């Protein structure tokens, strides 16, 4: 990765940490183990830890476990080469034991890629269910473990009612369990229940986070999500194609804030509590596309329903993050416009 890309990400981490590093003090001189460690979440966590170590003397050692690390080495070789980072290639489902010095675990192994959910629903479910079980079994053996952070998903809530401004952690929601599309969120729900069972029976200290949508560096623009599609179309000169009438509402968080929030929840989150992680600022896809277009020279054209769409009902997915704000004093260091600009800038820097 070019130094300019590294600089962008390091600046992002500094900006997120400007909210304070003292709350993260329990992490000093400790060992963190991250499953799914070379993915989007793991990479950003590692960037944040690297910043804490380099600029605040935290001396945290991170072990990243993943099935593959090719893309990680390719896009974040500066992290892979660090002495305070160890990469372990292993399938989370086959974990038997963990480094005995591990004090913190962030369990992020799973793919949020809906292409995989559609093509290999059995595999997607299996990684979450059996991977979580394997990690919990291994975690029970650790004598120094201080916290297990389970990364769940904002998708577990199912459809957000249109008249509900934002989804709070207490909303139970509903999923059609007979629908193959529910495999990923149902598995995540089960993983949360499994964590609750281990907490009850084995006295593990476990918090859960439910991430929503993100936009930022390290997100491949080939992912078929609205944010990545719009940015890629804009960078190609447009048009930006919006399906439907653009009234669907989504919110996007910048990943340096995501990493900062995860570390705070890891350290200070209450055991047994779930926390939404995302931006509470929902915007319509029409507005989102317009803001992206504004950030690109020549302002690419935006097209709506170019394929003669049936205009399915607009949907909404916005988290209520007041729990993180009130209990953990967490906020955003990067607003949507800055997130878009920095994402485009990072992707334009090759």
């Amino acid at each position, binding site marked *: 990765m070019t130094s300019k890309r590294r600089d962008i990400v390091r600046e992002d981490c500094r900006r997120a940490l400007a909210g304070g590093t003292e709350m993260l003090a329990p992490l000093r001189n400790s060992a963190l183990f991250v499953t799914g460690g070379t993915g989007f979440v793991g990479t950003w966590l590692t960037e944040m830890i690297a910043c804490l170590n380099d600029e605040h003397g935290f001396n945290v050692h991170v072990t990243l476990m993943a099935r593959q690390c090719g893309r990680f080495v390719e896009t974040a070789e500066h992290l892979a080469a660090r002495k305070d980072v160890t990469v372990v290639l292993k399938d989370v489902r086959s974990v038997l034991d963990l480094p005995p010095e591990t004090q913190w675990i962030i369990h992020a192994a799973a793919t949020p890629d*809906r*292409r995989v*959910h*559609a*093509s290999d629903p059995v595999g997607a479910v299996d990684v979450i269910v059996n991977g979580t079980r394997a990690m919990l079994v291994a975690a029970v053996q650790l004598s120094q473990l201080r916290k297990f952070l389970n990364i769940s998903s904002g998708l577990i809530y199912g459809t957000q009612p249109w008249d509900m401004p934002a989804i709070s952690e207490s909303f139970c929601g509903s999923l059609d369990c007979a629908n*193959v*599309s529910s495999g990923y969120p149902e598995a995540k729900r089960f993983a949360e229940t499994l964590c609750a069972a281990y907490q009850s029976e084995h006295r593990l200290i476990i918090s859960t986070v439910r991430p929503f949508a993100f936009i930022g560096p390290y997100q491949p*623009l*080939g992912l*078929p999500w609205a944010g990545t*599609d719009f940015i*890629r*179309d804009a960078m*190609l*000169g*447009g048009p930006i*194609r919006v*399906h*439907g009438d653009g009234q669907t509402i989504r919110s996007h968080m910048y990943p340096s804030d995501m990493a900062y929030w995860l570390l705070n929840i890891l350290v200070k989150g209450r055991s047994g509590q779930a926390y939404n992680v995302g931006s509470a600022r929902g915007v319509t896809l029409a507005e989102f596309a317009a803001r992206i277009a504004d950030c690109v020279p020549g302002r690419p054209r935006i097209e709506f329903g*170019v*394929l*003669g*769409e*049936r205009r*399915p009902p607009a949907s909404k997915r916005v988290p209520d993050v007041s729990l993180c704000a009130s209990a953990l004093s967490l906020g955003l260091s990067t607003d949507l416009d800055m997130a878009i600009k920095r994402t485009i800038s990072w992707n334009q820097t090759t």
Partner: protein
Amino acid sequence: MKKIIVSDPTLRDGNHALGHQLNVRQMVMYAAASDAAGVAIVEVGHGNGLGASSLQVGESAIEDLAMLGAVRAVLKHAKLGVHIIPGFGTINKNLKPAIEAGVDVVRVASHCTEADTTQRHIGYAREKGRVAYGVLMMSHMAAKEVLLNECRKMESYGAEAVVLMDSAGAYLPADVSERIGFLARNLSIPVGFHGHNNLGMAVANSAAAAEAGATLLDGSARGLGAGAGNTPLEVMIAVLHRMGYSTDVDLYKILDAADLAERHLMPKIPTISSLSIASGLAGVFSGFAKHVERVAAEYGVDAREVFRELGNRKVVAGQEDVAIEVAIELAARKGEEK
């Protein structure tokens, strides 16, 4: 007024009917007429799509890029579309240069239960900023629930619309209404339909698709296409207008385009042959016709019976050799009866 996006595969599916021998002059002439009529997408290529020209399925008279470049140059409003079946067409060898040649719409097709094969091609087209459709061929062979799952895969890969092909011309309007309606109710992306005319139902099936929620419809001039042909575009437009749909297509100009195609593209207007009816009833891809005729003659059996048995065995394109097996069995049975 509900709008239908019209895609014209005359210069692609029509190539099937002409042994893939359309030349540049014919393509340019027809593409200009279709474009002038207001058709949204003009599809170009070998009958089986990009990269399919081969001894096995027939060699094109001209190379893919020559066709695309020539047609690109005359399209003023219509988008330039291609059909690609992963396996026949690869990303680096076929799709990449086609996109560089100016293709706007990439229709990535697979057998109706094999959408998994389309992921990389759809993803590549989207990465390059092109419109990507997923196309399920031989869709009569799968239940609507299976088709929905396959369409959801394509949607997850980035397909911006999915098109059901009635490749064997086996559907009746009620079948179309059931499948298209089910997909339209359960998918968030547009649904399309591509008819074949083996049972004389192509226009009625296309109209049923529109009524059930399809917003993309394919039609070829005079129905020029594989087997008994596609949905005749000019008839489909007339019917859609009569039903109150908007298509952006000028009826008189598309009638002129059909006349032009009849004069300059086709040695004879596609008709529904007896064997096409048999293949439609059997639900077997029309591309089997030549093989079936040949083996039926060789083993002295009724070609229609060969089709019926092939239908029972649910053969798909690429399994043409099974026709020999069937003909041998039918001949043996015939011998026993004597």
